[in-house]
């Protein structure tokens, strides 16, 4: 990974109020699968989109991108791979 910019994955962090069912509905609407709440962070959900390529050097656009504009979505972030080295 060294020497290059961000690497985008097909995972999203999404904050949606209204509970898990609401999150499921919104996930399905844009082709995501809701993998559940992120630990104990309230209203923060882990979405996965199997039709977006797993790793790309840029953020692919498509139907799924509209989730960022959904009024019920407070916040959404496509996950990038972080380089972590062992000490």
């Amino acid at each position: 990974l060294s020497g290059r910019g961000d690497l985008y994955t097909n995972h999203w962090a999404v904050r949606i109020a209204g509970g898990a069912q609401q999150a499921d509905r919104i996930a399905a609407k844009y082709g995501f699968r809701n993998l559940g709440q992120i630990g104990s962070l309230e209203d923060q959900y882990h979405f996965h989109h199997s039709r977006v390529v797993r790793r790309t050097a840029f953020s692919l656009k498509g139907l799924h991108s509209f989730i960022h504009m959904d009024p019920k979505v407070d916040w959404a972030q496509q996950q990038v791979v972080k380089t972590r080295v062992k000490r």
Partner: protein
Amino acid sequence: HASFSDPNAIHFNDPKWSNMWYIHCNNKNSRCRSEMNILAAWQRGYTGKNVVVTILDDGIERNHPDLAQNYDPVASYDVNGNDHDPTPRYDTRSENIHGTRCAGEVAAAANNSHCIVGIAYNAHIGGIRMLDGDVTDIVEAKSLGIRPDYIHIYSASWGPKDDGKTVDGPGLLTKQAFEQGIRKGRKGLGSIFVWASGNGGRQGDHCSCDGYTSSIYTISISSTTENGNKPWYLEVCSSIMATTYSSGEYNERRIVTTDARQRCTDAHTGTSVSAPIVAGIIALALEANRLLTWRDVQHLVVKTSRPVHLKAEDWKTNAAGHRVSHHYGFGLVDADAMVLEATKWRTVPPQHTCSQIAELHTRHIFAGQSLNSSLTTSGCSGDTEQHVGYLEHVVAKVLIVHPRRGDLEMNLISPSGTRSQLLAKRVYDSSNEGFRNWEFMTVHFWGERPEGMWTLEIIDSPSKLRNPEVLANLKEWTIILYGTSQNPQQHYSAQQSQSRMLVVPSPELILEEPEVQEEEEEEKEEEEYTGLCHSECGDQGCDGPDADHCLNCAHFSLGSLKSGRTCVSHCPPGHYGDIVSHRCKRCYKGCDQCVGRSAGDCLSCQRGLYLNTLNSSCINTCPLGHFADEDQRQCLKCHETCTMCLRYADRCTSCSEGYSLAGMTCVPECTNGTFFHLEEMTCSPCHSSCRTCTGLGKEDCIQCAKGYLQQEWRCVQTCASGYYAGEAAGLPHKICHRCEDNCLCCSGPGPTCTKCKAGYSLISRTCIVNASCNNADEVFCEMVKSNRLCERTFYSQFCCRTCLMNG
């Protein structure tokens, strides 16, 4: 149990015990390096019992002979594989050995003839596998948020690249996970995060650019070599709190630990070694005092760590008297001092936060020059909620635009004149991003008073030619002061004097034996005095008006001829009135009030000692089943459910037969299928799906009842669609494992799907999206078919289904 009376006599039968030079001095022909005092802490009986530590890394070999005994599945998870088994992925290049090496340092079992002895060799050890895959903000946040009410200490020995040009740290979710862990973890006491300070084996970096070690929520640990030298790999920075031994030059001894594939190794190096050592030491301290908050632990580290023989040119004493360095923080950790202080610790006053934005007069930073920006603060003394009177962490949040970030050095100078380097030049960093509200944290001002002028000094010294027209600009900087409004030192000193009393260097010096002195006295005659005598004088009159002129005493005489004798109505503390001789005689040493001179005649004890009601003697440590009551200075019995308690009868640290510890309360050991309901104080039944549980709800199962399987955090009778039932190592019940993506029914891992989700077709037991792709032309499909690409999920999106269906 080995006999602890003579530390050098301790010997465990673990094959590498003799190599553990950093714990004992058994190896007579080389220098003793046991200043971390781990053995002394064991000698006090602290080995990490009932404390839970987990390692965030690339997995943990839970069946390693030295880890299996202490392995705790409830403190483990595989975030990369999304299941409960953190066993590392084995590959030819042995990439995933790091977590197992860290785990051994913390809790390798003792005296089991395998490998080594962990620092907390009776602690629970778990592993969170999260480095062996794409590490994202979600992965880190999930890892840090696993079972915060069960796991006490999270240890991490990884971080951003150390290439000297990266500035990176926790993402938004991970920051939230830190804050949540601090606020709610350990039932409100705060999770403990221990982090290896920012080395990584390359040069030219500065660990202030590692956002994990620069967080106030993490305890950043540095390394020194056996001889107290700076290891070649070490990065310096102002957020380092303490140091442990680690590997050094080829001729210096190394740390030994467990290795993957059930082996041992001394190849574990760098600060990756140091974080787990401190995690183990904190486990000992938590065993000594369960009530320590996350800030108490940091105060303990600051108070007990010290420079010893660590060599650094930048050691300085801050205005609160703490010795501190950018290399080693407050110095080498001291396990014995930690557990001793922990037993007497009183929670520090609440944390206050006071922040202030600097008013900028000049903003430009000219190449080759420096810019100073100062601000004056009262420490928010006007607001009782924010007032910081005594500092803990100080953060400078800086927004700088700069054409070549690596040319910058920054220092922060406190009102007391202490200087802390927040950033050093980084010659490899040619980024033009500047610093966007990056938070530089320092612990160098710990204990100082914040009132006065703070100065941020920015030095710009180009390492290459730069375009002079592109100016650097300090846009904004904010100082954030963390600390307490009251002086935690007073809190310390109260204990300090106690501890000094508790540890009396030579009893003879302070308390003489009374009989010996007094028998030597002779009385002398005085010349005639005719005035009134003191009221305490007896019937033989006096030769002066004061009580020390009496010829005999109405009540008692105090003192000796040599030191001067006087008459008193009653004897002072440490003495009792002997009715026969009418003299104040000393009590037995340590007694404050007594009825006689023998050890069993004490009625109350001097400060720091406690009356053992069993034999009326004064002792500094109460017998088993008793606690030291500070007010009455007596050893009082623990609650009958406790075998050991702390400060109060019902603050238990170990329980009687039939009871188990819940927090610091001993609750009846409930039989399987029940749990102790704290509010109702009875054993209440678990949910029918649980075999053991921590509460009423379906999510509170620890183990599932017979006939149930664990799915995510619940127990179910049958796995939901998309899951298959499989074995779970270390658990008495099966677990529902997730089928492959888009699969509704499968029989096991990998391509075993028997039914797909809508919109997918089953092809060679894997689910392929069946979207028709009307733009696939014959040639393309032929290519796909001839190369059998359809069998690889990645290409399945090229509409293989259509091609196949068309034969």
